[in-house]
Protein backbone atom coordinates (compact mmCIF):
# COMPACT_ATOMS: atom_id res chain seq x y z
CA UNK A 1 0.00 0.00 0.00
CA UNK A 2 1.38 3.41 -0.98
CA UNK A 3 2.14 5.81 1.86
CA UNK A 4 -0.11 8.85 2.13
CA UNK A 5 1.81 12.03 1.19
CA UNK A 6 2.64 13.95 4.35
CA UNK A 7 1.08 17.10 2.89
CA UNK A 8 -2.34 15.41 3.13
CA UNK A 9 -2.02 14.50 6.79
CA UNK A 10 -3.31 16.52 9.74
CA UNK A 11 -0.78 18.01 12.16
CA UNK A 12 -1.55 15.41 14.83
CA UNK A 13 -1.08 12.57 12.34
CA UNK A 14 2.27 14.03 11.38
CA UNK A 15 3.24 14.27 15.05
CA UNK A 16 2.39 10.59 15.48
CA UNK A 17 4.72 9.77 12.59
CA UNK A 18 7.48 11.95 14.05
CA UNK A 19 7.10 10.15 17.36
CA UNK A 20 7.74 6.91 15.47
CA UNK A 21 10.93 8.37 14.04
CA UNK A 22 9.74 9.82 10.73
CA UNK A 23 11.76 12.98 10.30
CA UNK A 24 10.18 13.92 6.98
CA UNK A 25 6.88 14.30 8.80
CA UNK A 26 8.51 16.90 11.03
CA UNK A 27 9.88 18.73 7.99
CA UNK A 28 6.29 18.95 6.75
CA UNK A 29 5.26 20.52 10.08
CA UNK A 30 8.06 23.06 9.68
CA UNK A 31 6.88 23.92 6.16
CA UNK A 32 3.35 24.44 7.41
CA UNK A 33 4.17 26.66 10.34
CA UNK A 34 7.46 28.35 9.52
CA UNK A 35 5.95 31.61 8.28
CA UNK A 36 3.68 32.07 11.29
CA UNK A 37 6.54 31.13 13.61
CA UNK A 38 8.84 33.58 11.87
CA UNK A 39 6.34 36.45 12.18
CA UNK A 40 5.89 35.82 15.88
CA UNK A 41 9.64 35.73 16.42
CA UNK A 42 9.99 38.90 14.36
CA UNK A 43 7.54 40.65 16.67
CA UNK A 44 9.94 39.98 19.53
CA UNK A 45 13.28 40.38 17.80
CA UNK A 46 12.48 42.96 15.10
CA UNK A 47 15.39 41.57 13.16
CA UNK A 48 15.26 39.17 10.20
CA UNK A 49 18.20 36.94 11.08
CA UNK A 50 17.33 36.83 14.79
CA UNK A 51 13.72 35.97 13.98
CA UNK A 52 14.86 33.16 11.70
CA UNK A 53 17.21 31.77 14.36
CA UNK A 54 14.59 32.01 17.10
CA UNK A 55 11.87 30.29 15.10
CA UNK A 56 14.28 27.55 14.01
CA UNK A 57 15.43 27.06 17.59
CA UNK A 58 11.80 26.61 18.60
CA UNK A 59 11.30 23.99 15.88
CA UNK A 60 14.40 22.11 17.04
CA UNK A 61 13.14 22.13 20.62
CA UNK A 62 9.79 20.85 19.46
CA UNK A 63 11.55 18.10 17.53
CA UNK A 64 13.69 16.95 20.44
CA UNK A 65 10.73 17.05 22.86
CA UNK A 66 8.13 15.64 20.50
CA UNK A 67 7.84 12.59 22.75
CA UNK A 68 6.29 14.82 25.42
CA UNK A 69 3.51 16.02 23.13
CA UNK A 70 0.44 14.25 24.47
CA UNK A 71 -2.16 15.58 22.03
CA UNK A 72 -4.22 17.36 24.68
CA UNK A 73 -3.83 20.54 22.63
CA UNK A 74 -3.15 21.00 18.95
CA UNK A 75 0.43 20.80 17.72
CA UNK A 76 0.52 24.48 16.89
CA UNK A 77 -0.72 25.51 20.37
CA UNK A 78 1.95 23.33 21.92
CA UNK A 79 4.62 24.61 19.57
CA UNK A 80 3.47 28.19 20.08
CA UNK A 81 4.28 27.99 23.79
CA UNK A 82 7.75 26.67 23.00
CA UNK A 83 8.26 29.49 20.52
CA UNK A 84 7.13 32.22 22.91
CA UNK A 85 9.41 30.83 25.63
CA UNK A 86 12.34 30.80 23.22
CA UNK A 87 11.56 34.42 22.32
CA UNK A 88 11.31 35.40 25.99
CA UNK A 89 14.67 33.75 26.67
CA UNK A 90 16.05 35.73 23.78
CA UNK A 91 14.72 38.92 25.36
CA UNK A 92 16.43 38.02 28.62
CA UNK A 93 19.70 37.40 26.77
CA UNK A 94 19.32 40.63 24.80
CA UNK A 95 18.79 42.54 28.03
CA UNK A 96 22.38 41.75 28.92
CA UNK A 97 23.64 43.68 25.90
CA UNK A 98 23.67 47.47 26.02
CA UNK A 99 20.54 49.15 24.64
CA UNK A 100 22.56 51.14 22.11
CA UNK A 101 24.05 47.99 20.67
CA UNK A 102 20.59 46.44 20.37
CA UNK A 103 19.23 49.52 18.63
CA UNK A 104 22.09 49.49 16.18
CA UNK A 105 21.40 45.91 15.23
CA UNK A 106 17.73 46.55 14.53
CA UNK A 107 18.13 49.94 12.94
CA UNK A 108 17.36 49.91 9.27
CA UNK A 109 16.26 46.29 9.25
CA UNK A 110 12.79 46.69 10.69
CA UNK A 111 10.14 47.40 8.16
CA UNK A 112 7.61 49.85 9.53
CA UNK A 113 3.98 48.88 9.80
CA UNK A 114 1.78 49.20 6.70
CA UNK A 115 0.55 52.58 7.88
CA UNK A 116 3.97 54.09 7.34
CA UNK A 117 5.42 51.71 4.79
CA UNK A 118 6.46 52.86 1.34
CA UNK A 119 7.23 56.42 2.38
CA UNK A 120 7.43 58.54 -0.74
CA UNK A 121 9.18 61.73 0.24
CA UNK A 122 12.49 62.09 2.11
CA UNK A 123 10.57 63.64 4.99
CA UNK A 124 8.27 60.63 5.21
CA UNK A 125 11.26 58.29 5.00
CA UNK A 126 12.92 60.14 7.84
CA UNK A 127 9.75 59.97 9.93
CA UNK A 128 9.34 56.27 9.20
CA UNK A 129 12.94 55.55 10.21
CA UNK A 130 12.65 57.61 13.35
CA UNK A 131 9.36 55.99 14.28
CA UNK A 132 10.78 52.52 13.74
CA UNK A 133 13.70 53.24 16.05
CA UNK A 134 11.53 54.89 18.66
CA UNK A 135 9.03 52.04 18.69
CA UNK A 136 11.86 49.52 19.10
CA UNK A 137 13.35 51.53 21.94
CA UNK A 138 9.96 52.05 23.63
CA UNK A 139 9.18 48.33 23.48
CA UNK A 140 12.65 47.58 24.78
CA UNK A 141 12.01 49.74 27.83
CA UNK A 142 8.90 47.80 28.85
CA UNK A 143 9.25 45.22 31.63
CA UNK A 144 9.41 41.69 30.17
CA UNK A 145 5.90 40.64 31.20
CA UNK A 146 4.27 43.81 29.96
CA UNK A 147 6.14 43.53 26.70
CA UNK A 148 5.14 39.89 26.27
CA UNK A 149 1.48 40.57 27.01
CA UNK A 150 1.53 43.52 24.61
CA UNK A 151 3.24 41.67 21.76
CA UNK A 152 1.00 38.63 22.11
CA UNK A 153 -2.08 40.87 22.04
CA UNK A 154 -1.12 43.67 19.71
CA UNK A 155 1.12 41.82 17.25
CA UNK A 156 -0.20 38.28 17.43
CA UNK A 157 -3.85 38.98 18.20
CA UNK A 158 -4.15 36.35 20.92
CA UNK A 159 -7.10 36.55 23.28
CA UNK A 160 -6.54 37.48 26.92
CA UNK A 161 -7.29 33.87 27.86
CA UNK A 162 -4.71 32.53 25.39
CA UNK A 163 -2.12 35.00 26.64
CA UNK A 164 -2.83 33.98 30.22
CA UNK A 165 -2.32 30.31 29.26
CA UNK A 166 0.86 31.08 27.38
CA UNK A 167 2.30 33.19 30.18
CA UNK A 168 0.91 30.80 32.80
CA UNK A 169 -0.73 33.58 34.75
CA UNK A 170 -4.21 34.87 35.59
CA UNK A 171 -6.32 36.72 33.02
CA UNK A 172 -6.60 39.68 35.40
CA UNK A 173 -2.82 39.89 35.57
CA UNK A 174 -2.59 39.89 31.78
CA UNK A 175 -5.10 42.76 31.63
CA UNK A 176 -3.00 44.77 34.08
CA UNK A 177 0.20 44.08 32.10
CA UNK A 178 -1.52 45.06 28.88
CA UNK A 179 -2.95 48.26 30.29
CA UNK A 180 0.40 49.31 31.75
CA UNK A 181 2.22 48.50 28.50
CA UNK A 182 -0.24 50.54 26.44
CA UNK A 183 -0.04 53.46 28.88
CA UNK A 184 3.78 53.42 28.80
CA UNK A 185 3.90 53.16 25.00
CA UNK A 186 1.43 55.99 24.57
CA UNK A 187 3.58 58.21 26.73
CA UNK A 188 6.78 57.21 24.92
CA UNK A 189 5.28 57.59 21.46
CA UNK A 190 2.80 60.41 22.03
CA UNK A 191 4.60 62.62 19.53
CA UNK A 192 3.68 60.20 16.74
CA UNK A 193 -0.04 60.11 17.55
Amino acid sequence: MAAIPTAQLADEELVALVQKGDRRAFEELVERHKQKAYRIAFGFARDREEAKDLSQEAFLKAFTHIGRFDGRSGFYTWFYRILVNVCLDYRRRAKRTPAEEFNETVEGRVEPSPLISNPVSPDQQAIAGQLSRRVGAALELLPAKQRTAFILKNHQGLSIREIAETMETAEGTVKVHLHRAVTALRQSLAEFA
Partner: protein
Amino acid sequence: MIARDKPALKACRFLEEDLVLYYYGELSASDRRDCEAHLKDCDACRASLAEMSKLLPITTAHDEPPPTFWNDYSREMRRKLDAVAERETWWRRIVSLLSPLPVPALATGAILLVALTLTLGKGLWQSSNSAPDDEALIEVLPIAEQLDFFSDMELLDNLDLLETLGGQGYGTT
Protein backbone atom coordinates in the same frame (compact mmCIF):
# COMPACT_ATOMS: atom_id res chain seq x y z
CA MET B 1 6.66 67.54 10.94
CA ILE B 2 6.65 65.61 14.21
CA ALA B 3 5.12 67.36 17.14
CA ARG B 4 7.40 67.04 20.18
CA ASP B 5 6.55 66.59 23.83
CA LYS B 6 2.90 66.02 23.08
CA PRO B 7 1.34 64.44 26.15
CA ALA B 8 -0.76 61.28 25.80
CA LEU B 9 -4.47 62.02 25.95
CA LYS B 10 -6.01 61.12 29.27
CA ALA B 11 -9.20 59.08 29.47
CA CYS B 12 -11.43 59.07 32.54
CA ARG B 13 -9.49 57.22 35.21
CA PHE B 14 -12.18 54.63 35.96
CA LEU B 15 -12.34 53.67 32.28
CA GLU B 16 -8.62 53.62 31.43
CA GLU B 17 -8.16 49.84 31.65
CA ASP B 18 -11.52 49.08 30.08
CA LEU B 19 -10.75 51.40 27.19
CA VAL B 20 -7.65 49.34 26.33
CA LEU B 21 -9.72 46.16 26.51
CA TYR B 22 -12.44 47.82 24.44
CA TYR B 23 -9.89 48.71 21.78
CA TYR B 24 -8.78 45.07 21.63
CA GLY B 25 -12.37 43.76 21.68
CA GLU B 26 -11.89 42.03 25.01
CA LEU B 27 -14.80 43.49 26.99
CA SER B 28 -17.86 41.45 27.84
CA ALA B 29 -21.07 42.45 26.08
CA SER B 30 -22.46 44.37 29.04
CA ASP B 31 -19.13 46.15 29.75
CA ARG B 32 -18.88 47.03 26.08
CA ARG B 33 -22.34 48.58 26.13
CA ASP B 34 -21.44 50.61 29.23
CA CYS B 35 -18.19 51.72 27.63
CA GLU B 36 -19.90 52.78 24.42
CA ALA B 37 -22.54 54.69 26.37
CA HIS B 38 -19.77 56.56 28.19
CA LEU B 39 -17.87 57.26 24.98
CA LYS B 40 -20.90 58.98 23.50
CA ASP B 41 -20.79 61.60 26.22
CA CYS B 42 -17.06 61.87 26.95
CA ASP B 43 -14.77 63.80 24.60
CA ALA B 44 -11.62 62.89 26.54
CA CYS B 45 -12.25 59.15 26.34
CA ARG B 46 -13.16 59.38 22.65
CA ALA B 47 -9.94 61.28 21.95
CA SER B 48 -7.96 58.76 23.99
CA LEU B 49 -9.47 55.87 22.03
CA ALA B 50 -8.74 57.63 18.75
CA GLU B 51 -5.13 58.10 19.80
CA MET B 52 -4.77 54.41 20.67
CA SER B 53 -6.32 53.45 17.35
CA LYS B 54 -3.75 55.56 15.55
CA LEU B 55 -0.71 54.71 17.63
CA LEU B 56 -0.90 51.01 18.50
CA PRO B 57 -1.02 49.64 14.95
CA ILE B 58 2.24 51.41 14.10
CA THR B 59 4.06 49.58 16.90
CA THR B 60 3.85 46.30 15.04
CA ALA B 61 6.78 45.36 12.86
CA HIS B 62 6.04 43.52 9.65
CA ASP B 63 8.53 41.70 7.53
CA GLU B 64 7.90 39.99 4.24
CA PRO B 65 11.10 38.17 3.33
CA PRO B 66 11.65 37.21 -0.31
CA PRO B 67 11.00 33.60 -1.51
CA THR B 68 14.73 32.86 -1.48
CA PHE B 69 14.71 33.52 2.26
CA TRP B 70 12.14 30.75 2.76
CA ASN B 71 14.11 28.31 0.62
CA ASP B 72 17.21 29.02 2.69
CA TYR B 73 15.13 28.72 5.83
CA SER B 74 13.99 25.20 4.92
CA ARG B 75 17.47 24.10 3.84
CA GLU B 76 19.04 25.44 7.03
CA MET B 77 16.32 23.82 9.11
CA ARG B 78 17.00 20.42 7.53
CA ARG B 79 20.71 20.82 8.24
CA LYS B 80 20.00 21.65 11.88
CA LEU B 81 17.62 18.70 12.16
CA ASP B 82 20.36 16.46 10.71
CA ALA B 83 22.74 17.66 13.43
CA VAL B 84 20.17 17.00 16.17
CA ALA B 85 19.34 13.58 14.73
CA GLU B 86 23.05 12.74 14.59
CA ARG B 87 23.49 13.68 18.26
CA GLU B 88 20.47 11.58 19.19
CA THR B 89 21.87 8.64 17.24
CA TRP B 90 24.98 8.64 19.41
CA TRP B 91 22.87 8.57 22.53
CA ARG B 92 20.76 5.78 21.12
CA ARG B 93 23.91 3.77 20.37
CA ILE B 94 25.09 4.10 23.95
CA VAL B 95 21.67 3.15 25.27
CA SER B 96 21.43 0.26 22.82
CA LEU B 97 24.67 -1.20 24.19
CA LEU B 98 22.93 -1.62 27.53
CA SER B 99 19.46 -2.38 26.30
CA PRO B 100 20.00 -6.09 25.28
CA LEU B 101 20.49 -6.91 28.93
CA PRO B 102 17.13 -7.68 30.54
CA VAL B 103 16.13 -5.69 33.58
CA PRO B 104 16.42 -8.68 36.02
CA ALA B 105 19.98 -9.28 34.82
CA LEU B 106 20.85 -5.62 35.37
CA ALA B 107 19.24 -5.75 38.83
CA THR B 108 21.13 -8.95 39.74
CA GLY B 109 24.36 -7.36 38.56
CA ALA B 110 23.68 -4.30 40.68
CA ILE B 111 22.95 -6.44 43.77
CA LEU B 112 26.13 -8.47 43.23
CA LEU B 113 28.12 -5.27 42.88
CA VAL B 114 26.71 -3.93 46.14
CA ALA B 115 27.37 -7.24 47.91
CA LEU B 116 30.95 -7.35 46.59
CA THR B 117 31.55 -3.78 47.66
CA LEU B 118 30.24 -4.49 51.15
CA THR B 119 32.32 -7.66 51.49
CA LEU B 120 35.54 -6.08 50.30
CA GLY B 121 34.74 -2.96 52.25
CA LYS B 122 34.23 -4.97 55.41
CA GLY B 123 37.59 -6.79 54.90
CA LEU B 124 39.34 -3.51 54.44
CA TRP B 125 37.53 -2.12 57.45
CA GLN B 126 38.65 -5.03 59.58
CA SER B 127 42.24 -4.83 58.42
CA SER B 128 42.24 -1.13 59.05
CA ASN B 129 41.05 -1.85 62.62
CA SER B 130 43.85 -4.37 63.32
CA ALA B 131 46.18 -1.71 64.66
CA PRO B 132 43.97 -0.85 67.64
CA ASP B 133 43.79 -4.62 68.44
CA ASP B 134 47.60 -4.78 68.61
CA GLU B 135 47.65 -1.75 70.82
CA ALA B 136 45.16 -3.41 73.14
CA LEU B 137 47.34 -6.53 73.24
CA ILE B 138 50.36 -4.45 74.20
CA GLU B 139 48.32 -3.00 77.05
CA VAL B 140 47.12 -6.43 78.19
CA LEU B 141 50.52 -8.19 78.14
CA PRO B 142 51.95 -6.54 81.27
CA ILE B 143 48.78 -7.46 83.13
CA ALA B 144 49.19 -11.03 81.99
CA GLU B 145 52.75 -10.93 83.23
CA GLN B 146 51.48 -9.71 86.55
CA LEU B 147 49.04 -12.58 86.61
CA ASP B 148 52.00 -14.94 86.12
CA PHE B 149 53.59 -13.29 89.08
CA PHE B 150 50.47 -13.89 91.13
CA SER B 151 50.35 -17.51 90.02
CA ASP B 152 54.01 -17.78 91.21
CA MET B 153 52.90 -16.34 94.53
CA GLU B 154 50.29 -19.07 94.75
CA LEU B 155 53.01 -21.64 94.12
CA LEU B 156 55.01 -20.13 96.99
CA ASP B 157 51.96 -20.51 99.21
CA ASN B 158 51.83 -24.13 98.18
CA LEU B 159 55.51 -24.53 99.00
CA ASP B 160 54.89 -23.15 102.49
CA LEU B 161 52.09 -25.62 102.90
CA LEU B 162 54.36 -28.47 101.82
CA GLU B 163 57.05 -27.34 104.24
CA THR B 164 54.53 -27.26 107.06
CA LEU B 165 53.24 -30.63 106.19
CA GLY B 166 56.85 -31.96 105.80
CA GLY B 167 57.86 -30.53 109.21
CA GLN B 168 54.94 -32.25 110.83
CA GLY B 169 55.91 -35.50 109.08
CA TYR B 170 59.48 -35.30 110.09
CA GLY B 171 58.45 -34.65 113.67
CA THR B 172 56.23 -37.78 113.78
CA THR B 173 58.72 -40.05 112.18
